[in-house]
């Protein structure tokens, strides 16, 4: 692809991402709902943490009550920032609206990803400060070494990229199974458990922790979250590389899936 062709192509997807941001801004109630939900989750689990840690039931080196609340704020920020756009892909496949999208000089999957990345960027920007505000309010302080939170930022962004790619793949599965909710449900629960959404992996039995490390979920949630426990550039770099590898694998898988979708649409008519 020539340079100017590439630039024109990038400009199209940037425009689609921009339109998605404008649409998300127009749907302010949805965004506000996410902020409220984030606050509620942080409040409920902060109570649990205060009881459990305060009672001495568990202990993580370098992590007190405040750090655990900040951990939760980071992991929830990563996960809640990704819109459930697999549902819109599913709806387009069900209704046949996908046909409308295919007559444009733009890749269907590329356009879906551009929309999702646009909306995710906005949510990251809104939910990030909101999560920090809630965590500060509930914990009453910053983590012992707040510099770790700076390292969580790029990790959180890359984590959302991985989640977007995963959700796109879940959405495309609608071409085979129509109802994608069972696949999303499994993906989400695996992310909760193996990713350490609520409980840091340090608290898991060693066999489960070892098992979880074979999946992308610890890099996606535990990796950014544990930056709340201290400033560890080496660990952050390791997590970043791990996330980059998982993103590359997810992108390759998605590309293969998109090719099969094109063939399937050709055969079955979408």
């Amino acid at each position, binding site marked *: 692809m020539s340079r100017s062709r590439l630039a024109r192509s990038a400009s199209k997807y940037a*425009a689609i991402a921009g339109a998605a941001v404008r649409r998300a801004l127009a749907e302010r109630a949805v965004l506000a709902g996410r902020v409220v939900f984030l606050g509620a989750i942080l409040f409920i689990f902060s109570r649990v943490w205060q009881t459990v840690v305060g009672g001495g039931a568990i202990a993580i080196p370098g992590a007190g009550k405040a750090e655990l609340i900040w951990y939760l704020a980071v992991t929830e920020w990563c996960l809640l920032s990704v819109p459930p756009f697999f549902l819109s892909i599913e709806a387009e496949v069900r209704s046949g609206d996908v046909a409308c999208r295919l*007559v*444009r000089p733009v890749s269907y999957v590329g356009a879906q990803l551009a929309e999702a990345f646009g909306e995710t960027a906005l949510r990251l920007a809104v939910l990030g400060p909101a999560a920090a505000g809630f965590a500060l309010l509930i914990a009453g302080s910053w983590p012992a070494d707040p510099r770790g939170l700076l390292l969580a930022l790029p990790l959180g962004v890359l984590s959302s990229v991985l989640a977007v790619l995963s959700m796109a793949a879940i959405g495309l599965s609608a071409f085979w199974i129509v109802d994608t909710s069972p696949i999303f449900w499994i993906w989400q629960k695996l992310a909760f458990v193996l990713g350490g959404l609520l409980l840091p992996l340090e608290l898991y039995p060693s066999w489960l922790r070892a098992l979880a490390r074979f999946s992308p979920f610890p890099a996606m949630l535990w990796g950014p979250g544990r930056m709340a426990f201290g400033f560890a550039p080496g660990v952050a770099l390791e997590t970043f590389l791990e996330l980059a590898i998982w993103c590359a694998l997810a992108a390759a898988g998605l590309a293969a899936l998109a090719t099969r979708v094109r063939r399937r649409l050709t055969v079955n008519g979408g």
Partner: protein
Amino acid sequence: MPHAIELAHLRKVFRVRERARGFAASLRALIAPREREVVAVDDVSFAIAPGERVAFVGPNGAGKSTTLKVLSGILQPTAGLVRVLGLDPGRDRARLAFRIGTVFGQRSQLWSHLPAADTFDLLARIYELEPAEYRQRRSELVSSFAIADIIEKPVRQLSLGERMRCELVASLLHRPEILFLDEPTIGLDVVAKATIRDLVRERGRRDGCTVLLTSHDTGDMEGVCERVLVIHQGRLLLDRPIEALRKSFIPRKRVSVVTEEAELRIDLPGVRRLPSAAHRTELEVDLAVIGVDRVVAAIVAGARVLDLSVEDPPMEEIVTAIYAGAAPAAARA
């Protein structure tokens, strides 16, 4: 002159999974699903010259939309030759996309939460229009489709007729050489239908754009097109100028009239009263005997009219008449 659209012996077959009945059959179907073939389009051939406005009509499930999807590159044909602007749509879908415009009446290409103007801006980027060229084209279309006062409203707040005008503008921004319209007037009221038909016809003339319009509303083909292709059960039944079809197969019109008087008194040769209700009269007019204008004049002279509409017989009735009166082999006039 090369054809804008050329189809030769197009056949499109879908494989449909058969639903298993009973628990044991459902389990078996998980491992070895049974499929059957559904022939959506069978041996359809036609050619359309550049600038021609052609109606592709037929009852629901006739194969109109499938053919349109094959022509726009969404679906691959099972067999046959397809050329659109000299390109093979299945292979050159991306290149073809720059040269065609599509409107699907039952689906929207506009973003419902945003104003139509935002979608236009986005489409300008997608179709790689130069900013100055886009501004000039948009301004021309906004004025011609009279949407200046609605393009800044979120699309979800627009009426169906307003939305359809915006859909048409969206599909015309990149100056397509061919416009595919799939049921563009479905769900619209009489006035909105007439507006859309006028706009499509005028725009087609002004831009020299080839129009292929699918519909099961005979009013669409009369209002927009000069030639009609009738398809039924996947096979091309008839290919004629509109005028010839009207004379041969639309010999009657239906007039519905609502009057202040409980009963409308009308006694004219060629006018038959259909089952009616108080204040609402349904008439069938035989065009070979009397013109609709004379019937309407008689109604208006004899009663206080609150509402009046003139409709063609339903497409199914026309197809039945074509079956009865014309052999497909001799269909071309």
